[in-house]
C-alpha cells in the first residue's frame, strides 16, 4: 500500500493539460501499489484550477499563498516535501514540464528520494514497481528501480491518456502553505511567447521545417495553419536563427508524439528523430531521395517543399 501524490500545474490560474496526463499516470500507478491517489496544486489564486482538477475524480490539496505565486524551486520544493509527509505518499510524480523538471529533483533531494525522469510506463506491483524510461535520447529504454523509501518521477505526457472528466468529483482541501521564508531568489518577469497555434507538445498535427527551408518558413507555417497544426523546427534551423528556440523538436528540444508529423526539408539526424519518432504517422518531404528521414517516414515524398507544402495546404483548406 503506497499512496501516490501528483503535483499538478497551473499558469495564470488555468490548469495545464499536462497535469491531466499526470493524474492518469498516477491512477495507473495506484492500480499497482494499492494506495490512494491525491493531487496537489501550488500557487496564488488557484481555486478554480483546483476545482477543474477535482472534477476529474481526484482529491486535490491546495496550497494557495502569495509567496507561491511564482514557481521558485526551493520554495515550492519545501512545500511539496511537507505535502508528501501529510499524504504519506510513497510516490511523488508530475508531468515532465519545465516546472516539474525544475522542482521535483529539488523536492526529491529534500526527501532523500531517488527519481526517474520522463517515465513512459510502470511495471511490477506493490513495493517493487519499476519505471520504464528513455536514455540516450530514446535510443535505449531502461527499466529502473528506485531504492529509496519515497520515489519521485516525472512522466512523458505523450505516453499517458488524459484523465477523464466525470464521475464523483474529488474533494478540494486547502492546506496551510507555511511561512514565506527567504529564498534568495527574485522573480523579475515573464515574457510569454504568444501563439494562435496549439502548443507543440500537445498538438494533434505538427509541421516542422529544417535546413531545406533555407530560412523561409512561410510554406511550413502555411501548411501548419491549414491543418490547425503546431510548427516545429530541426536544430539546424533553430541554430541558424530561422526559427525560435521553442520550436525545436529533438533530443535537446521538445519531444512530440502527434497523430501526424510532417518533416519538411529535414534530413533526419538522430538528434531530431529522438524528438518525433513517437508520432503515429510521419510524412517526409525532401528534395534529397537519400535523406535518412525517408527510412522512418510512413509516407515519403521526394519533392521541393516550396511547391509540395502549398499544394498540401490547398487540399487541407478544400477539405475543411
Amino acid at each position, binding site marked *: 500500500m503506497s499512496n501516490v501524490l501528483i503535483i499538478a500545474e497551473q499558469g495564470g490560474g488555468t490548469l495545464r493539460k499536462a497535469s491531466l496526463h499526470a493524474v492518469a499516470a498516477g491512477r495507473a500507478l495506484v492500480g499497482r501499489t494499492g494506495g490512494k491517489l491525491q493531487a496537489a496544486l501550488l500557487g496564488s489564486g488557484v481555486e478554480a484550477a483546483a476545482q477543474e482538477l477535482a472534477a476529474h475524480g481526484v482529491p486535490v490539496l491546495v496550497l494557495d499563498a502569495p509567496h507561491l505565486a511564482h514557481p521558485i524551486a526551493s520554495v515550492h520544493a519545501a512545500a511539496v516535501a511537507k505535502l508528501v509527509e501529510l499524504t504519506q505518499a510513497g510516490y511523488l510524480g508530475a508531468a515532465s514540464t519545465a516546472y516539474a523538471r525544475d522542482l521535483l529533483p529539488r523536492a526529491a533531494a529534500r526527501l532523500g528520494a531517488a527519481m526517474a525522469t*520522463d517515465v513512459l510506463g510502470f511495471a511490477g506491483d506493490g513495493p517493487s514497481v519499476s519505471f520504464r524510461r528513455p536514455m540516450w535520447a530514446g535510443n535505449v529504454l531502461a527499466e529502473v528501480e528506485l531504492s529509496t523509501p519515497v520515489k519521485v518521477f516525472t512522466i512523458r505526457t505523450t505516453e499517458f491518456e488524459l484523465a477523464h472528466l466525470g464521475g464523483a468529483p474529488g474533494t478540494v482541501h486547502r492546506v496551510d502553505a507555511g511561512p514565506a521564508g527567504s529564498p534568495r531568489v527574485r522573480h523579475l518577469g515573464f515574457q510569454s511567447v504568444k501563439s494562435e497555434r496549439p502548443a507543440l507538445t500537445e498538438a494533434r498535427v505538427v509541421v516542422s521545417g529544417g535546413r531545406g527551408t533555407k530560412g523561409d518558413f512561410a510554406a511550413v507555417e502555411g501548411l501548419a495553419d491549414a491543418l490547425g497544426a503546431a510548427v516545429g523546427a530541426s536544430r539546424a534551423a533553430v541554430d541558424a536563427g530561422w526559427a525560435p528556440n521553442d520550436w525545436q523538436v529533438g533530443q535537446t528540444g521538445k519531444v512530440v508524439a502527434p497523430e501526424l508529423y510532417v518533416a519538411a526539408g529535414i534530413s533526419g539526424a538522430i538528434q531530431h528523430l529522438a524528438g518525433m519518432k513517437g508520432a503515429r504517422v510521419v510524412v517526409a518531404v525532401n528534395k534529397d531521395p537519400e535523406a535518412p528521414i525517408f527510412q522512418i517516414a510512413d509516407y515519403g515524398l521526394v519533392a521541393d517543399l516550396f511547391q509540395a507544402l502549398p499544394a498540401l495546404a490547398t487540399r487541407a483548406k478544400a477539405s475543411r
Partner: protein
Amino acid sequence: MPLKILVTAKRVEDPESKIRVLPDGTGIVTDGVSTKLNPFDEIAVEEALRLKERHGGEVVVISAGGEKCQVELRAAMAMGADRAILIRHEGPLDPVIVSALFAKVVESEKPDLVLLGKQAIDDDQAQTGPYLAERLDWPQATFASKTVSLESEAEQKREPGLTLSADGKELTVLREVDGGVETLAVELPAVVTTELRLNKPRFASLPGIMKAKKKPLQELAAASLGVDLTPRVVVKRLTEPPPRKGGVKVADVDELWKKLHEEAKVV
C-alpha cells in the same frame, strides 16, 4: 568582482553515434563509439569562461567517474578552464550520489557559482543541478538561456548570457520555460544549469590543447569523501525500442493526400 566558478564536464557517448544495447541488456556497446564532453556541459564551460573573461576569477571543472573522464576534463581545460578535479569512482553513479560528491567538493572549494549542463545526454535524467542546489541550500536557476540570437553580434563577441550585478552579489538569469522566458535574479552563491541556446561553445585552439596538458588535474577517491556510494537509481535492464519501419514513397502531392486521408485517416 572576480567569480570562482565550478563547472561540470561529464564524459558521454557522442550524440551522433549509434547507440546499441548489449544482448544481455546490462549496458550499451561501447566498442567503436566515441565519447565527448556532454554538449550541455560544454555550454556551461563556455559560459563560465565568458564570465571569467568579463569579471575575472577562476574556472574549475569537475567530473565523477573512471580514469578516462580525464579526457573530457582536459578538453574543458583546452577550452580555457584553469584546473580540474576528478572524483574517481569505478562503480555505477546516479544523480543522488553525484550531487552528494559534488557537494563535498563545493564545501572545500567554496565557489561563488556552480554551472552544470541541464542534463547529460546519456542517462537524460536532468537532476544533478537541483539535487546539488538543495543539498547546499543554495538558490537555483535551471535552463539558463538567452533571447538574443546565437548569430547576433553580442554572441560573436562572446558576451555572457548571465548578468552579474554591479555589487557582484546577484546573477540575473533568463530561463527557458514552457510558454516563454522567465527572468530570475539569484543571490550568489548559486547553482545554474544551462540550456542549449545559452551560447555557442568555442573550439579549443591548438595552443589551448597544449596548455591543457600541463594544467593541474587533481584526483579524489570517491570513497574518501564520506558519501554513501550505494546506487539508488538501479538500472535493471536495457532494451532497444522497436525500430520504426520505413513506409512507402509516394509519387506526388495528390497521392500523399489520398493516403493520409483514406489509409492513415489523419487528415
